[in-house]
C-alpha cells in the first residue's frame, strides 16, 4: 500500500511535466526520470571521490567576494578579515580604524586571510577608545598584521547517509530530486494532493478546481511543507555540520608608536620614541548557532609616569609660567592577557561579549558590543558597546560604525 502511495506521488509529480511548473518555482523539472534513485549509490556518491576530479580555473573577475564579519573595531578577540573603515567613540575619546584584507581564493576546506589594520586615537592625550581592551596598545598610531586560517569541519558522509535515507523513505525515484530542496517539493506535492482529496465531496473534480482555489491550496501546501521541512532541514544540517561547523586560528603582531615628552630629574624637557608591541594567538570554534574565540596576547607597552610641574617666573610679573610633563621616561609594562569572546546572532541584532584578564597586573576587562545597524547588503555595520575594566572601575559607553570598502 505504501509503495502504491509513493508511486502515486510520482504519478502526480513527474520530474518534467508542465503541470508541476508551479511546484518547482525555480526550474521546471524534466518529465522522465533522469537518474534512477538507488540508495547505496546515493550514499556512496557523498563519500568517494570519483573520476571526474575537480580543478579550479582562473576566471575573469565578475564580482568581489563578500566576506563580511562583524563591524571592524567592535570586537577585539575574533580575527578580522575585512576591508573597511570604522570609528569607535565614547564621550571622552574615539579611535579611527582602517583595515585591509586581500581577497584570496577559498582553497578547498580552508580559507586563508591576511589583514593589515591601522588605528589612531582622536586625541593624543587620552586613549580611552581602547576602552576595556587590555590587549590593545596605547599609541598615536597602532599597526597590526594578522594571518588567519578558517577550516570547515563538515561531515559529507553523515549528511549523505541522512539525506539519501530520507529520500528513500519518502519514495523519491529520481536522484536529481534528492536534496533538501527536492524533499521540500515532494512534501509540498504530498500535502497538495491530500488537500485536494479533502475538499468537500460536492466540489468539482481536481482537474476542474478554480485557479484561485488552486492558489490557496498551493499556499497552504507550501506552508505545511515548510513546517515539515524545518524539522527535517535541522536534522540534515546537524548531520552535515555536527555540533562543530568549523575552526579558525590566527596569529597577530602589533606595534604602537607614541611620541612622548617628559622631564628629566634636572627639569629638562626631552622626547622619546619607543614603540610598544604585542603578539597574539587566537583559536576559535564555530558552532551551528554561535561561535567562540580565545586569544592569548603577550604585550610590552609603555606607561607614562605621574606628571611633575615646572614653573618659571614671568619677567616683569609676579605670575609664573608652569608646564606639566611626566617625570622621567615612560615605564615599560609587560602584560600577558587571556581574552575570550562569544558571538551570538539573532533576528535583528547580534551580541559579542568578551572577558579579558591580565595576569601581570591582575586586571579584568569586560566588553559587550551590541550590533544593531545593518546596511543594504544586510551586513551589520554599527551599534554600541559597554566596556568596563577593574583598574578604572567605571563603565564606558561607546558607539561604533563601520563602512565596508569592498562589497
Amino acid at each position, binding site marked *: 500500500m505504501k509503495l502504491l502511495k509513493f508511486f502515486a506521488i510520482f504519478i502526480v509529480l513527474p520530474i518534467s511535466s508542465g503541470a508541476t511548473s508551479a511546484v*518547482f518555482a*525555480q*526550474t521546471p*523539472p*524534466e518529465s522522465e526520470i*533522469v*537518474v534512477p534513485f538507488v540508495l547505496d549509490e546515493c550514499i556512496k*556518491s*557523498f563519500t*568517494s571521490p570519483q*573520476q*571526474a*576530479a*575537480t*580543478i*579550479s580555473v582562473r576566471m*575573469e*573577475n*565578475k*564580482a*568581489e*567576494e*563578500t*566576506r563580511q*564579519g*562583524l563591524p571592524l573595531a567592535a570586537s577585539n578577540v575574533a580575527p578580522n578579515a575585512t576591508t573597511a573603515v570604522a570609528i569607535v567613540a565614547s564621550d571622552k575619546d574615539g579611535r579611527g580604524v582602517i583595515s585591509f584584507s586581500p581577497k*584570496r*581564493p*577559498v*582553497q*578547498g*576546506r580552508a580559507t586563508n586571510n591576511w589583514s593589515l589594520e591601522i588605528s589612531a586615537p582622536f586625541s593624543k592625550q587620552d586613549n580611552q577608545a581602547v576602552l576595556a581592551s587590555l590587549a590593545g596598545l596605547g599609541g598615536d598610531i597602532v599597526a597590526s598584521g594578522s594571518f588567519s586560517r*578558517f577550516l*570547515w569541519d563538515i561531515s*559529507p558522509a553523515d*549528511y549523505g547517509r541522512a539525506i539519501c535515507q530520507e529520500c528513500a523513505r519518502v519514495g523519491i525515484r529520481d*536522484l*536529481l530530486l*534528492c*536534496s*533538501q*530542496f527536492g524533499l521540500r*517539493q515532494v512534501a509540498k506535492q504530498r500535502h497538495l494532493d491530500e488537500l485536494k482529496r479533502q475538499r468537500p465531496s460536492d466540489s468539482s473534480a481536481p482537474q476542474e478546481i478554480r485557479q484561485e482555489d488552486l492558489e490557496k491550496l498551493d499556499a497552504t501546501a507550501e506552508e505545511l511543507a515548510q513546517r515539515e521541512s524545518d524539522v527535517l*532541514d*535541522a536534522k540534515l*544540517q546537524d548531520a*552535515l*555540520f555536527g555540533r562543530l*561547523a*568549523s575552526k579558525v586560528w590566527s596569529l597577530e603582531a602589533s606595534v604602537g608608536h607614541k611620541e612622548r615628552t617628559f622631564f628629566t630629574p634636572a627639569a629638562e624637557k626631552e622626547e622619546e620614541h619607543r614603540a610598544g608591541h604585542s603578539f597574539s594567538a587566537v583559536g576559535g570554534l*564555530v558552532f*551551528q*548557532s*554561535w561561535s567562540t574565540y580565545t586569544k592569548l596576547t603577550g604585550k610590552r607597552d609603555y606607561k607614562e609616569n605621574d606628571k611633575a610641574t615646572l614653573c618659571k617666573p614671568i619677567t616683569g610679573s609676579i605670575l609664573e609660567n608652569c608646564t606639566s610633563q611626566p617625570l622621567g621616561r615612560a615605564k615599560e609594562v609587560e602584560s600577558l592577557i587571556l581574552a575570550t569572546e562569544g558571538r551570538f*546572532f*539573532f*533576528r535583528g541584532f*547580534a551580541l559579542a561579549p568578551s572577558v579579558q584578564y591580565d595576569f601581570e597586573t591582575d586586571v579584568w576587562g569586560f566588553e559587550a558590543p551590541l550590533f544593531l545597524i545593518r546596511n543594504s*547588503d*544586510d551586513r551589520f555595520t554599527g551599534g554600541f558597546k559597554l566596556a568596563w575594566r577593574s583598574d578604572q572601575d567605571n563603565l564606558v559607553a561607546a558607539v561604533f560604525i563601520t563602512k565596508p570598502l569592498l562589497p
Partner: protein
Amino acid sequence: MIIPVTVVFQSNGQKRFLMHNGNFVPIEPTGTAVIQCQQNVAELILFGIEGPSGSTATITLTPQAPHILKIVGHPIKGKIAQGKTVWGDNRFFVVK
C-alpha cells in the same frame, strides 16, 4: 566526454565551501569556480556558508555551450536560519 561547468557562488556570509563528487573545490574571490563534469553522468555538489543568521547564498551552474543542465531547484538559493551560523544543501545534476 568532460564538460566544464562554471559555478557562480554568491554569498553575503563570511565563509563558503563547495564540494564536487567528494572533493573540495577552490572558489575564486569573485565567487567563481569551474568543475569538470562527465556528460550524461550524475554529478553531485555539496555546498554551505557560515555567517550571521539571515546570510544568503545563490549558486548558479552554467555548462559550456551547447550543453544543457538537468537539475532540480536552480538557481540554488539558501539562507542561514534564525539563531544559526551555518547552512548547507546538495544537488545532483546531469550535463547533457
